[in-house]
């Protein structure tokens, strides 16, 4: 484990751009570790409060639509 690089490169197939299953799983593992670390932090208060406030009857503030036309731009760029 202390020498990830040489361990991993030994099992690559150089020149073919091929990924060994070992390297694929190592990348997947690191990616999820990074991601899940944030997921585990849960919902910060600021967002819980934001959603609660917006939900209060009659309290829905006017969200400025500076872009206007951008608002329905879902799925397209």
């Amino acid at each position, binding site marked *: 484990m*202390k020498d*990830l*690089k040489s361990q*991993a*490169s030994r099992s*690559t197939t*150089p*020149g073919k*751009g091929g*990924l060994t299953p070992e*390297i*694929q799983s*190592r*990348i*997947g593992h*690191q*990616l*999820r*570790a*990074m*991601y*899940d*670390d*944030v*997921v*585990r*932090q*849960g*919902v*910060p208060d*600021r*967002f*819980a409060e*934001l*959603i609660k406030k*917006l*939900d209060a009857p009659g309290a*829905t503030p006017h*969200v400025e*639509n500076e872009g206007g036309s*951008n*608002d*329905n*731009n*879902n*799925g*397209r*760029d």
Partner: protein
Amino acid sequence: MPLTDSLRNDILAAVPSLRAFAISLSGNADRADDLVQETLLRALANIDSFQPGSNLPAWLFTILRNLFRSDYRKRRREVEDAEGNYAKTLKTQPSQNAHLEFEEFRTALDKLPQDQREALILVGASGFSYEDAASICGCAVGTIKSRVNRARSKLAALLYVDGAEDFGPDETVRAVIGGSGG
């Protein structure tokens, strides 16, 4: 559809992964939370356009992704303190080794073209299907697959094979034969 309690709870439940997506994309915790906030405001302002029964996380991720991309165009020349800022968001202080490994990974991830990075994160970390990822990114399923594959290959080259990108066939063979090569 109107903002019901259950819809509100579903939106809340999506916040942790929206943050993770935003941080993975931007590499900057403060900016990521601004993106999430903007996403929630947009989503709530446009809640009428959400189709009941459709994929709420995918809808929210689409909004965030589009915001990030328009924001990115404005900011692309700004210098960012990606690693330093991200490290602050970590709850537990990783051990020295793990931390170095993490920074290496983060740096490599930031070197990917944006299209590839977002595809890899959506499929490899958020757990979306190729189909959902394609709809979030507004492209074909095959395009997503090839972006994910290219992202993996590039990460492997950056992380696990030193300088592999610069290798022509000759150098590759030499490196394999010569081991540590000098």
